[in-house]
């Protein structure tokens, strides 16, 4: 069965610090990969996605993620966080063969950025 693991439950950073949130998945086949963000009081929004091609993908608000197939990882990065990045971040996967199919989510990482 597919599963997704996010390494950090809660990350606290100061503004301008660099961010890396870990995500590993378990699935033997080809996958599509996503990072969603949920700002306080708002709905899940897509930050970025990977389907194929360049394993380094860029998303909104200066976020990027790198797909490393050999490590089954899709870590999220941002060189310099802002207070407004305070949110919960979710990594998600779906099986490429079933592209209308369900997303499997990690448990989420809460990011708190101190001004």
């Amino acid at each position, binding site marked *: 069965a597919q599963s997704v693991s996010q390494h950090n439950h809660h990350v606290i950073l100061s503004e301008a610090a660099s961010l890396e949130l870990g995500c590993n998945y378990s699935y033997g086949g080809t996958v599509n990969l996503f990072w969603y963000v949920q700002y306080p009081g708002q*709905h899940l929004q897509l930050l970025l996605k990977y389907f194929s091609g360049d394993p380094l993908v860029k998303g909104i608000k200066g976020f990027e993620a790198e797909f490393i197939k050999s490590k089954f990882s899709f870590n999220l990065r941002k060189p310099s966080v802002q207070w407004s990045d305070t949110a919960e971040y979710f990594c998600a996967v779906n099986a490429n063969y079933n592209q*209308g199919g369900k*997303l499997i989510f990690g448990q989420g990482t809460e990011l708190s950025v101190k001004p």
Partner: protein
Amino acid sequence: EPEVTQTPSHQVTQMGQEVILRCVPISNHLYFYWYRQILGQKVEFLVSFYNNEISEKSEIFDDQFSVERPDGSNFTLKIRSTKLEDSAMYFCASMRLAGVYEQYFGPGTRLTVT
């Protein structure tokens, strides 16, 4: 920008009662989903719906649950006889097409079963 909407934002019900959670997906989307998140736990898939039928459902989605697209715009999740453990945030999502598209999520309905 078009959004997925959900009503109500918060529903309180007594154990054993039926509830209907409503969603209006983005208008030109063809795939529809329900997920739930119990407090402190992962977002879990419940069911997907395409071409007026369920395409996939999880183990959670037992006989107490049903989905319907009664008209061209609404997508509903019904829980026939609620249990305490059904208390969760329920998210609706929709997707334009399969392929290189993503799912768009609604703001959620917080269901509290007392």
